């Protein structure tokens, strides 16, 4: 450590409290020029919170921020970017109604005559930024017309549009496909070469070991350790993160496959997907793999009754059913854990226990009248099975970290005791400890005879958990893989549409 240069930015004894939660308690963090520092920690460890403090979105309750040894404060996001700090945030914080170029430059648009905004100049600069990161996006299109991956690329371009010395990336790869992730790595190398200090937050260990030079570990809002990546192993890092060792990531399973619960034939939608058909048996875990934007979520949402397919049949336990709404799907034992937790999963504003019982109100009430004791009972049962971390059950879900919100959403569905559970990216943005819990839980569910559909973009997860995998590309089923055929190579080949060599 002695040979490293002075840090560009250094945080010391930073404390941040929210009503009822101490998100950060006297933590420290140093970022060095030309180096990538990985910030690791479980869900709710306070990673995103420190990012928001660094970018002027939150004000710390205590501690100091030193830039080049000078103490400084960031009352607004402008102050932080003026000090040369830029960030790609965990949530995509962009404007659907504005154009790509406007999104990239909002807040610091080039000015032309009379101090008015210079649109042409802005579009040109945006184009060159996008080209620079290998994104094929027209800067004049409206953001709402882009897919989720492209939106993320715009967010990256936006961060780079500020001439920064410190670049922060909070889970930048969560929504990106392989190709885009590779390009991101290249970009990181380029930034490093330019001498920028990079803070990289990720739950994916392969990534961290590939690109980071240093690490800092937080646990439950406290600083645990930091050092050089070259001096630690994966197991040590995990140990520091969770305060215990996590040995085996995917549970050993002996699938006991029962009779068929769900049979889908010829599901099609005018614009999103077509020709989808498969069958699913009790106790089975069926994986759905594909690149982001392959239409998996759209199909699952049609299956769950959010959108209506234009044709196709759905049989449950051999009986043909028409699912017109999520209420129908739930009544027929199909439930869906959505991908967009904040928008579609948790009802922020309602307490945890009410979130859990929302789809099971029929069970916790008598003749439509609520029984509180039953509600608390049900909520307690399922949240403790998922090892939820919260101060109390009547706390607003909005005050939980992302991973814990996900647990509440899963608990909500398990409480309905479904026949088929669809999990759309169930471990996206979840820390390694909770991830293992979710995986264990999934196999437990399957062992109890539940049929599980798991949509995932992570190959290890798909391979580790699924008994069978369906690959989708551009709205169609392109392969159904099982046993021997199930290899990383076949998955990627089918998902990307590459011909066999």
């Amino acid at each position, binding site marked *: 450590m002695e040979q490293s240069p002075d840090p560009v930015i250094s945080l010391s004894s930073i404390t941040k409290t929210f009503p009822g939660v101490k998100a950060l308690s006297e933590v420290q963090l140093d970022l060095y020029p030309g180096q990538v520092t990985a910030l690791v920690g479980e869900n709710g460890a306070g990673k995103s919170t420190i990012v928001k403090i660094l970018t002027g979105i939150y004000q710390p309750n205590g501690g100091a921020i030193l830039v080049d040894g000078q103490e400084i404060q960031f009352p607004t996001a402008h102050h932080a970017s003026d000090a040369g700090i830029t960030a790609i945030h965990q949530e995509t914080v962009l404007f659907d109604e504005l154009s790509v170029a406007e999104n990239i430059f909002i807040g610091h648009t080039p000015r032309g005559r009379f101090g008015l905004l210079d649109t042409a100049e802005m579009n040109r600069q945006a184009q060159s930024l996008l080209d620079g990161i290998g994104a094929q996006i027209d800067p004049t299109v409206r953001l709402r017309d882009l897919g989720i991956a492209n939106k993320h690329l715009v967010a990256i371009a936006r961060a780079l549009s500020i001439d920064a010395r410190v670049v922060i990336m909070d889970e930048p790869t969560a929504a990106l496909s392989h190709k885009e992730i590779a390009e991101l790595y290249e970009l990181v190398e380029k930034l490093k070469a330019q001498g920028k200090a990079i803070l990289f937050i990720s739950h994916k260990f392969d990534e961290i070991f590939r690109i980071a030079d240093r690490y800092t570990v937080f646990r439950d809002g406290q600083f645990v350790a930091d050092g050089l990546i070259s001096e630690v192993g994966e197991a040590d890092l995990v140990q520091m993160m969770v305060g215990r060792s996590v040995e085996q990531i995917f549970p050993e399973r002996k699938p006991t496959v029962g009779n068929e619960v769900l049979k889908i034939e010829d599901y099609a939608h005018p614009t999103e997907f077509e020709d989808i058909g498969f069958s699913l048996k009790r106790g089975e875990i069926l994986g759905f793999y594909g690149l982001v934007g392959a239409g998996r979520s759209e199909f699952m949402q049609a299956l769950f009754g959010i959108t209506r397919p234009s044709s196709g049949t759905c049989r449950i336990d051999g009986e043909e059913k028409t699912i017109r709404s999520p209420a129908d799907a739930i009544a027929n034992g199909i439930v869906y854990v959505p991908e967009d937790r904040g928008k579609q999963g948790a009802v922020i504003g309602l307490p945890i226990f009410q979130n859990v019982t929302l789809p099971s109100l029929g069970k916790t009430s008598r003749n439509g009248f*609520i029984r509180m004791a039953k509600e608390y009972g049900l909520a*307690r049962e399922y949240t403790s099975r998922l090892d939820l971390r*919260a101060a109390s059950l009547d706390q607003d879900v909005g005050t939980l970290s992302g991973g814990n919100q996900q647990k509440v959403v899963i608990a909500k569905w398990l409480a309905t005791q479904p026949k088929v559970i669809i999990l759309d990216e169930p471990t996206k943005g979840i820390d390694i400890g909770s991830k293992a819990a979710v995986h264990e839980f999934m196999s437990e569910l399957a062992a109890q005879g539940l049929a599980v559909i798991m949509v995932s973009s992570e190959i290890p997860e798909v391979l580790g958990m699924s008994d069978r995998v369906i690959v989708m590309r551009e709205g169609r089923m392109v392969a159904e893989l099982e046993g021997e055929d199930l290899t990383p190579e076949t998955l990627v080949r089918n998902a990307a549409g590459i011909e066999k060599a």
Partner: protein
Amino acid sequence: MSLAERHIPDRLTNPLQRALKSWEALLLVVAVTVFIINSLSSPYFLDAWNLSDATFNFTEKAMIAFAMALLIISGEIDLSVASIIALASTAMGAAVQFGAGTTEIVLIGLLVGLICGAFNGGLVTVLGLPSIVVTIGTMSLFRGISYIVLGDQAYGGYPRSFAFFGQGYVWWVISFEIVLFFVLAAAFWVLLHKTNFGRSVYAIGNNPTAALFSGIRVQRVKFILFMLTGLMAGVAAVCLTSRLGSTRPSIAVGWELEVVTMVVLGGINILGGSGSIPGVVIAAFVMGMVTFGFGLLNVPGIVMSIFIGLLLIGVIALPRLWSMFIARRG
């Protein structure tokens, strides 16, 4: 995984403590203050008959406010309620001309309210239009139909027995309207706070997408809420028409804003998602008492409205100013 059971308590603060710090408690303090100021400033205030007369200042509006509270919690709004009163009242008046009896008149009033509510609800839920805009439109449309029917005429000649709803007394100074007010308050309290339906209203108000993904029939619940609001406007139309004994198209002009003011004063979040019926009940009393108290002091109505406006902003602003003040000192 350390399965050392992490115990999560049900609640951190006990319900009583919570109630003491609530909006309703604050409002109750305001209500008691208003009551005391009124009785000190006018010798006429503390008189059973006068207080009874004063309740008419708010009962009809409050009946609509209960349903509007649910609608606003669900994230929608209905600005056409006063116009629904006009249309329902017109329909009742027309029914009288065709020789309808009291029962038929009341049924027609309620039915027209329900239909108007369904019309709003249909435009909002089936066509997916924003309710604030739809109901600005139907606000003109419903009252406009009354004008087409009645023009510069008035309907009168309501049967004697019909007068009971707006002018009748159940016992001594206890009017039918105040009894109905309390019955409806209790019914809406149960509906919002004690039933699955009420729970889904809150869920929809906080996050309609997640509510839909949780199997709640969002559009159906909203449609029912619009019908309920229309129905309550119909109930108010029956009471008001009975109290006035006649119908003109200009009946209840401007009530929509008073109803919304009452709801907001009652602590219902105008953005949806939170609020309670007891709050609305207390707010109704506060507004009624304030207008009556000022009336006794012969303050012109327009000056009174300054006070209502200040009350509306002040009741929300003061606690925030106070906590800002505390934060600055601490």
